[in-house]
């Protein structure tokens, strides 16, 4: 029953958890300016429903979901909307995206909140509440949770609801701290999720290097029947596919969803926000961010969405000397930022200010010697060096045939490569190219159809004109034309 399974590959990485996890979560600052991106989730960007000059209250919706896979965005504090325009956002490109900028008034005045009893609500109403509270996966993938809480169609019955507290990336400790400090609220949110999904069992997976979190969660689960499982500390145990395999022994099919095998998985912080949304009527306005690395006081901060990274760094005592790279997320999968003047979003689990010693210096890639270290490390059981050849030669069709899209971009292959080839970067590049080409193809197909429609319309109009001409023309001429046509056809 409590048997643990194992996954292929993976790594023992550096940990660096204690820098930040020995201190309690600190409340974040209330900055004068909050810049709230309207795309903080997977799917369509939210549509802005405020204009510059509008007064907004804390918790007021400022962006409404656009389509099924989208999420609502709310004002994290009260104030006046200063702008709705393009601002730099935390993204590897360093590009700008549509944001609502709020000048806060310092009063932090709430909109009217409506706590509800989840047991009295119809499941679809409950899901709508979660959706309009802007609840998305806070583990980093930021997929709208309301969609995942609707099992309809994928499986007869949900076997297992899994709460992901593995937190396998080095340096990050926000889930560790939230489990230690807010375990009861997490379990309350988990109960609401279980109410919606009606699973046979509820499992909570936590890496065994977090004994305090395991103890807190076990205590909070007393009497609920939920099982807390310690999983071995091995990167990437916190990846959905690997955690589900560890806990249930089942593999999500290629290109499939967890629900295809009757499992659904949420991050612990997401459960916390579900509880706040339903039992307190509070939408997602803040999240716990680990600020760590080469800063003076590494901490976990409960930061308002839209707070600038620079403000959080300042709260942590500022940079120590020689910070070379600012990373959002962990060192394995996180991306480097161009500068620190970008806002915290729902995806910001960690801000890692890294010095040269904490990084591996960039080195020129050597030729692949096919040593197979990447094959042994790949948790998706791919042949990374083969994918690398295909991606490098731009043979994208072959890369796809060799299961490029099973790659979870965990970075294990690049980590172990003795030739220092940026393998995972080649896969990201290949995936991007394949998507771009598909989009181009769709666009070309649309253009072809429109061109064809136009040709047909022109042809039809020509014929109609000719028909009109024939009607207007004297009968003899018409007879002649007719004869000619017939003759031509004959």
């Amino acid at each position, binding site marked *: 029953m409590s048997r643990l399974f194992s*996954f*292929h590959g993976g790594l023992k*990485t*550096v940990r660096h958890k204690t820098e930040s996890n020995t201190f309690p979560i600190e409340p974040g600052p209330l900055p004068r300016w909050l810049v709230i991106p309207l795309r903080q989730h997977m799917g369509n960007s939210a549509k802005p429903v405020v204009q510059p000059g509008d007064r907004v209250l804390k918790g007021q919706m400022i962006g409404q979901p656009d389509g099924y896979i989208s999420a609502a965005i709310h004002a994290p504090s009260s104030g006046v909307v200063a702008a709705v325009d393009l601002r730099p956002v935390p993204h590897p490109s*360093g590009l700008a995206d549509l944001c609502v900028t709020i000048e806060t008034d310092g009063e932090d005045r709430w909109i009217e909140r409506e706590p509800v009893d989840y047991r009295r609500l119809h499941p679809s109403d409950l899901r709508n509440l979660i959706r309009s509270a802007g609840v998305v996966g806070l583990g980093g993938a930021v997929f709208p949770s309301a969609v995942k809480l609707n099992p309809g169609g994928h499986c007869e019955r949900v076997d297992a609801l899994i709460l992901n507290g593995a937190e396998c990336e*080095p340096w990050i400790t926000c889930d560790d701290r939230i489990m230690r400090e807010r375990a009861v609220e997490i379990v309350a949110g988990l109960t609401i999720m279980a109410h919606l999904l009606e699973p046979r069992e509820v499992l909570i997976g936590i890496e065994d290097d977090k004994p305090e979190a395991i103890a807190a969660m076990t205590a909070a689960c007393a009497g609920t029947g939920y099982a807390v499982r310690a999983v071995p500390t091995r990167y990437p145990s916190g990846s959905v*596919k690997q955690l589900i395999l560890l806990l249930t022994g089942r*593999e*999500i*099919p*290629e*290109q499939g969803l967890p629900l295809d095998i009757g499992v659904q998985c949420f991050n612990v912080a997401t459960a916390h926000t579900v509880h706040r949304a339903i039992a307190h009527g509070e939408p997602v306005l803040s999240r716990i961010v680990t600020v760590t690395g080469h800063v003076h006081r590494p901490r976990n901060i409960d930061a308002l969405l839209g707070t600038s990274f*620079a403000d959080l760094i300042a709260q942590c005592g500022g940079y120590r000397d020689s*910070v*070379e*790279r*600012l*990373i959002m997320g962990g*060192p*394995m999968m*996180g*991306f*480097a*930022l*161009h*500068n*620190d*003047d970008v806002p915290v979003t729902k995806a910001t689990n960690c801000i890692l200010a890294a010095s040269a010693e*904490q*990084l*591996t210096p960039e080195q*020129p890639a*050597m*030729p*692949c*010697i*096919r*040593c*197979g*270290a990447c*094959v042994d490390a790949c*948790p998706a*059981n*791919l*042949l990374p060096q*083969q994918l690398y050849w295909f991606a490098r030669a731009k043979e994208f069709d072959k890369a796809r045939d*060799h299961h490029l899209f*099973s790659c979870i971009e965990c*970075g294990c292959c*690049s*980590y*172990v*490569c*003795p*030739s*220092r080839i*940026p393998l*995972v*970067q080649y896969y*990201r590049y290949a995936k991007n190219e394949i998507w771009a080409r598909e989009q181009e193809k769709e666009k070309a197909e649309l253009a072809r159809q429109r061109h064809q429609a136009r040709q047909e319309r022109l042809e039809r109009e020509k014929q109609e004109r000719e028909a009109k001409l024939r009607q207007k023309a004297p009968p003899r001429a018409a007879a002649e034309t007719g004869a000619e046509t017939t003759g031509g056809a004959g």
Partner: protein
Amino acid sequence: MMRFQAVTSPHVLLETSVGQVMRRVLYAMLPGIAALVWFFGWGVLVNLVIATAVALVAEAAMLAARGKPLAPLGDSSAVVTAWLLAVALPPLAPWWLTTIGVLSAIVVAKHLYGGLGYNPFNPAMVGYVVLLISFPREMSTWLIPRGVGQAHALTLAETLRAIFVSTPVVDALTGATPLDVLRTKMGLGFSVAEIRNSPVFGLVSGHGWEWAVLGFLAGGLWLIYTRAADWRIPTGMLGGLALISTVFYLINPQKYAPPWFHLWSGAAIFGAFFIATDPVTASATPRGRLIYGAGIGVLVYIIRAFGGYPDGVAFSVLLMNIAAPTIDLYTPPRVFGARRG
């Protein structure tokens, strides 16, 4: 506002480089080489020095000729090739023999095919086979090991004269390798047991040789332990060799040598851990590596027992090099989430 360098993840990497892997291979060869030097004298070391020097010069020249940076010289891969070849040469091989072998390996087999990572054939074995086919007499003139017959250690000066001026060595000091003896006498109708009574044989296999084999086994196991070599290839090769030699031994122990003799003779252990494990030319999939190794093991036995050469590691490795891409094609691992079976 602070600006930072924008580089892609992962931001930390394991501190293992190609150079480190290659140097581990060199370290792992030391015990075996020490045993060879003890039993066969200075010649082994002189060969290693000549081969290393020629390999480094050839590598540098080829990198320069191809317009590549000279940095890869530091990865020691050329030295590994040189050592693999030098260890396989007779201890008093004339200097030009070693030079031709190393040049064939580095210039032809490695760089003309695109350099490190691109060569389809194991360079050291290409060099060895070129010599074996072109200079059969020089390649089969081995010294008899210390402790057999009238063997006495040659001085360094004698060794250098033999290697560089080709001064003939007293006939009493030279002889055939144990596998050569086995094959020749087998042709004359002796049984395996009778042949094993010859003084060139020791406890398990060739006198002296068996200690070198032990050294290479120790080094090889350390390579596996440090993950510088994949365990599957030696396992497959020794498994394949053991299996097929056991089968024939059970059929006729008079005519076929026992499996332990085969495993402990010639280049079987050395080949399994140091030659077949060259990743560039081996199969790359986990299952493929077992099959690749087993193929080499079986071929080694077939060549030894039925072929025209006393040992067959070099030919077997080259033959399986050809097969490696095909093996890879048919042995992909089951991708996560793909249906089993």
